[in-house]
């Protein structure tokens, strides 16, 4: 068990790629941290540098209070699960799981007992005599996890462990990894490019972009209060809608005015924060689930703003229906209950929950607080 502290970390590859550009990160003991971001954002490099498979060019890495920059991977007491499982093809499952213990010269009886225990925990006891090539993808992933937990390390590192599995198996293994963390409580750092994995697994999400941390925090905190347009767009599926607009004052109230002529009054409770932006362009960010069909009979909240739209695309998924309409020339996706709208070409009234929308400075792409 250990906390991890990273200070001013830089990693450059030969050939001029500056993969990690000054990362500061403090991970408390026992936390499940997910590094997420688009491919090439430096998240895997950061993980490999923590493991010691890459050398840091600048900055320090501390694990459990010890600076480990000059430690070899084997001396860092971390375990890692790889995307391609990295099982040793010439060893049976039991040998694969016990490999790290053998490398550390533990007595054979103890190795056997610990391998059996880990196999039991992951439900792969029946597979111990098989070779990796005789296993399915999910079983291989279990063995890879077994190889990590059997060593009882200070820190677990996962490098996109589920991306080679099919969708159903991925959901299953995701649940299992989460349960595993609850059981053993060891600090875990998990790299993925999948925002759903990040949201569901993480105690804390660290969202990276171009080698730097864009924002970090609890999953819902990032989801509900993104700091930048990038974060707002990265988390959530379907993606948040972004529509260009400007803030204008009319009848003493602030409203979003679109070039096409429509306008949406801002939520009176939040309007004061946007006072300085009156007369300036902003980007409206609204999640598909925050536009809805007004329910009959229920009182409308003061922040709900009605808007008449012409639906031009309908995608039913069974539980929900995604519909699209144009607002100020931009396609906007909205999530509705099934059967709300059946065909494209219909005009319906929707309401936008103005208490949940975000406004973005189009120049800095930062979310305007308020």
């Amino acid at each position, binding site marked *: 068990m250990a906390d991890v502290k990273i200070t001013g970390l830089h990693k450059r590859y030969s050939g001029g790629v500056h993969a990690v550009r000054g990362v500061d990160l403090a991970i408390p003991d026992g936390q499940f941290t997910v590094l997420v971001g688009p491919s090439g954002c430096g998240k895997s490099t950061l993980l*490999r540098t923590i*493991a*010691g*498979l890459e050398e840091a060019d600048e900055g320090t890495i501390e694990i459990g209070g010890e600076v480990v920059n000059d430690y*070899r*991977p*084997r001396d*860092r007491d*971390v*375990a*890692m699960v*790889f*995307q*391609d*499982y*990295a*099982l*040793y*093809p*010439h060893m049976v499952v039991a040998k694969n799981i016990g*490999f*790290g213990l053998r*490398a*550390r010269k533990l007595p054979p009886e103890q190795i056997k007992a610990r391998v059996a225990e880990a196999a039991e925990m992951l439900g792969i006891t029946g597979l111990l005599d098989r070779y*990796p*090539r005789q296993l399915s993808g999910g079983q*291989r992933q279990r063995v890879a996890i077994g*190889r990590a937990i059997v*060593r009882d390390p200070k820190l677990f*590192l996962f490098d996109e462990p589920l991306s080679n599995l099919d969708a159903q198996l991925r959901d299953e293994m995701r649940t299992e990894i989460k349960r595993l963390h609850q059981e053993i409580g060891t600090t875990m750092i998990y790299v993925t490019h999948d925002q759903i994995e990040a949201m569901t697994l993480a105690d804390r999400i660290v969202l990276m972009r171009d080698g730097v941390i864009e924002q970090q925090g609890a999953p819902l905190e990032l989801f509900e209060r993104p700091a930048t347009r990038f974060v707002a767009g990265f988390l959530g599926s379907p993606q948040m809608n972004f529509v260009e607009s400007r803030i204008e004052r009319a009848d003493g109230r602030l409203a979003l005015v679109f070039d096409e002529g429509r306008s949406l009054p801002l939520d009176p409770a939040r309007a004061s924060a946007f006072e300085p932006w009156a007369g300036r362009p902003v980007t409206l960010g609204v999640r598909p689930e925050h536009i809805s069909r007004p329910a009959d009979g229920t009182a409308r909240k003061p922040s709900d703003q009605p808007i008449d739209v012409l639906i031009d695309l309908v995608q039913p998924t069974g539980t929900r229906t995604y519909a699209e309409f144009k607002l100020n020339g931009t396609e906007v996706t909205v999530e509705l209950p099934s059967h709300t709208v059946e065909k494209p070409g219909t005009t319906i009234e929707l309401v936008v929950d103005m208490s949940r929308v975000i406004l973005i400075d189009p120049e800095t792409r930062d979310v305007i607080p308020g």
Partner: protein
Amino acid sequence: MTATVSAGPAPRRRRRGRRLPIGRILLLGIYLMFILAPLYWVLITSIKPSDDYLAVPPVWFPDAPTIVHYTAALFAYRGLQGLINSLIISISATALSCLIGTLMAYSLARFRTGGMHLSFWVLSQRFLPPIAIILPLFLNYRLVGLQDTHVGMILAYTMFTLPVTVWMMYAYFRQMPRSLEDAALVDGCTRWQALWTVAIPLAVPGIVAAAIFTFIACWTEFFFALVLTSRDAFTLPTVFRAFLSFQGAQYGEASALAIVSLGPSIILGVLVQKHLVRGLTLGAIRG
């Protein structure tokens, strides 16, 4: 063979497997003739009495097979000594070449030792015709006393086969997933242990293939042996010189020795057939 059912007018399909594939048999037959006829001739000549060598019509199988050519080739012409020398030199050079070549290839593949130029330079050694280096080598060997010694021949053959070994193993390590060794490093191995417990065992098919190429190259090499050896470290191929003389050609002895020299290659080929195919296809390693 599965025939696909298609709608519409029945397409004219050739009935496979019914008729004899005459073209194929003919082609393979001609090919086999080229391969086997000389072998047969050599085998038969090695047991023919001398009078039958060039008889017209040819003697397809001698009435009185003899082994005198074998005993003469092995003992009178020192063929046995050449065989032993060849075995010592070829096996040692193969072992050295594979050991050094594998380690060097690993270093090139994993650490990009020497950038891209070193790896190309290694292969470029083979662009050099042997004749270009044989004289300086000969003079240097005479200077340091390596001329006509086993050690000298082993070193020369190791150097001469190293480029191919390195390149075969380089390709092999390049296609081996790096994450296997990464896993071993994190699991508690030193780089050296990761190499010996993970990378090398997985590279065995490649090493075997490289070893066979190296061995055959050493076993059949003539030019270096001719220049660098004389009385002590002479190899099997050089013994054949003795069969051509002013008195004529000793067909029987030459054939007998040729048959003997085939032995190790055939035995080797049979023993490692399985590895050879996997090694040559750079056996895909999947976890």
